[in-house]
């Protein structure tokens, strides 16, 4: 027995292929949406993995440092270092801000880190690690900056010495790593006008500007223009210790909050990404319906165009199941080719997206199954029409 579906497709292949491509683009969009969600989750995970930390110590009763603002004194790290089970601990600061290079401005997460400590970028895509104590930066390739360029963060210029890949914040902003003191200054110190304004206000305060105490005003101004805060302390746990074991005393005795990686992941994925995830899920459902409608419509139209042939086939003795099978096969073929087109197209255009799009094979497989199911269901409309055809119509009335 030959394949009626195959012959029909071969006969009208142009239309079929065009329809498959159209469907494929729609499927590609759907796969990309799923990829956007996966990319967001992966961004969060990448952020946690790349930091190299087992514990995040933040301000008490905050969910920082990524989901919420957190501020600690920078000498807290010393007392954390003394706790049992702590292999390494270091201060870090995070601030999302605009970084400019010439006329080109980029929104980036500026990370202040201590050299050789948790918080430093692990592997580099190009260039080298920071060696000077000031005014050097390692950037992620998504910023669009190149090695050797001068970039401006707040008041200072930094030379780009190294480049990374996939170092992004949970919101997808690329990271720029600079030495911790520079980052503290960038986070705290404002522009010149604001500084002068602040100085004038302090000088006008009689409690701080006492003529009988020379040097008091200078000391107060100096204290105001220095920053001794950081956003978090990253802790690496010694082998043989569990992160929870080390976190418990920090929470109890140090009036701080400590999160393990599992907890941080939950905070980021469950809370930060939750709204976006719901939106994407709704979008996926709508796309599924649209795809089903399109496939149904296409197959229905194709079937209607064959009503006469179907009547003849029925009259000369073709089984109903054979005819239904033909329509179903066409729908599934459309779906399969559309899926392949969609998967290829999604892979090709995924890197162009501003946010990271992660196309997982598991998603592709479920997508394939869903497409096949949708096509099968969508074909039922056309099958019903085909089955209702009266073979007597082939005999002219």
């Amino acid at each position: 027995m030959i394949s009626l579906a195959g012959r029909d497709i071969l006969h009208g292949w142009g239309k079929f292929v065009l329809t498959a491509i159209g469907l494929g683009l729609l499927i590609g969009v759907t796969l990309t949406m799923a990829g956007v969600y996966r990319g967001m989750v992966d961004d969060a995970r990448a952020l946690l993995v790349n930091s190299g930390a087992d514990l995040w110590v933040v301000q008490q009763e905050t969910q920082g440092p990524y989901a919420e603002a957190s501020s600690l004194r920078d000498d807290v790290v010393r007392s954390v270092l003394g706790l049992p089970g702590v292999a390494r601990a270091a201060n870090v600061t995070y601030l999302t801000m605009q970084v400019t290079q010439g006329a080109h401005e980029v929104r980036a997460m500026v990370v202040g880190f201590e050299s050789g400590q948790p918080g430093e970028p692990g592997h580099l895509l190009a260039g080298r690690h920071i060696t000077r104590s000031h005014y050097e930066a390692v950037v992620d390739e998504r910023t669009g900056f190149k090695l050797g360029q001068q970039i401006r963060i707040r008041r200072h210029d930094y030379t780009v010495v190294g480049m990374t890949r996939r170092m992004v914040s949970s919101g997808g902003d690329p990271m720029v790593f600079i030495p911790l003191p520079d980052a503290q200054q960038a986070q705290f110190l404002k522009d010149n006008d604001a500084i002068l304004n602040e100085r004038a206000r302090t000088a006008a305060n009689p409690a701080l500007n006492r003529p009988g105490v020379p040097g008091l005003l200078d000391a107060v101004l100096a204290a105001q223009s220095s920053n001794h805060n950081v956003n978090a302390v990253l802790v690496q746990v010694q082998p043989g210790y569990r992160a929870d074991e080390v976190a418990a005393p920090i929470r109890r005795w140090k009036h701080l909050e400590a999160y393990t990686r599992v907890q941080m992941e939950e905070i980021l994925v469950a809370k930060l990404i939750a709204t976006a995830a719901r939106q994407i899920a709704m979008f996926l459902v709508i796309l599924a319906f649209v795809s089903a409608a399109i496939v149904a419509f296409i197959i229905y139209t194709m079937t209607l165009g064959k009503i006469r042939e179907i009547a003849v086939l029925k009259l000369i003795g073709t089984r109903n199941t054979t005819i239904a099978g033909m329509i179903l096969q066409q729908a599934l073929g459309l779906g399969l080719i559309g899926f392949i087109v969609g998967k290829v197209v999604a892979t090709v255009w995924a890197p162009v997206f501003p946010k990271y799009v992660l196309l997982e094979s598991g998603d592709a497989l479920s997508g394939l199954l869903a497409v096949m199911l949708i096509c099968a269901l969508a074909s039922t409309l056309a099958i019903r029409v085909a089955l209702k055809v009266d073979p007597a119509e082939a005999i002219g009335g």
Partner: protein
Amino acid sequence: MTEPGIRIENLRKRYGSGDTAVDALKDVNMVVAPGEVVGLIGPSGSGKSTLLKCLGAVIEPTAGRMVLGGQTIYDDGWQIKDLRALRRDRIGFVFQAPHLIPFLDVTDNVALLPMLAGSPNREARARALELLQALDVAHRAQAQPSALSGGEQQRVSIARALANRPPVILADEPTAPLDSERALAVVRILNQMARQYDTAIIVVTHDEKIIPTFKRIYHIRDGRTVEEAGEGRALEPELSA
């Protein structure tokens, strides 16, 4: 009685019920021997199509008896369960328009029926080629139906009708769109095939060009048939496309 060919006795078909009932066929009687080609002539509305549909096991008659190829298929009720298989194996259809499947090539169009009946593809195609040769269209075996002339298409459709060696062929106005030369050619072929394969053929027509060729004619009027002797004019043994 089970003899080959077609036998129809007291066939009646009523549409509707009660006051709006209409008898499309009132009392139809026909006999066609194997190898014979008879004409069925009548004005429109006389019940020709209805009779064809009943014979083709597409609609159910109201009462009567139909015997096809020695098999009683209807006797005040269908005697056969699988009508579709009946159509496929025991009845060949030739339509006004060739009605070839456009997405199958000529050979597959003819081989389709044997394939549906379960023949392996190679055998089915071999038989199709045989028939195409007999009908002198074998040189078009690989072509798409749309590339054939009207006459060639009609010959292919005849080959299709013969593909499963049915004992009966029902032809519905097979020559209507053709000119006299081609019309006669079709009739010539039908006669030839009927003799060659021992098939009983009913040709429903009102084409004046071919009516003289029938040896026997059934007139149908108001749902009743009347047998008549035809002229039986001889046909030139010439086949042209």
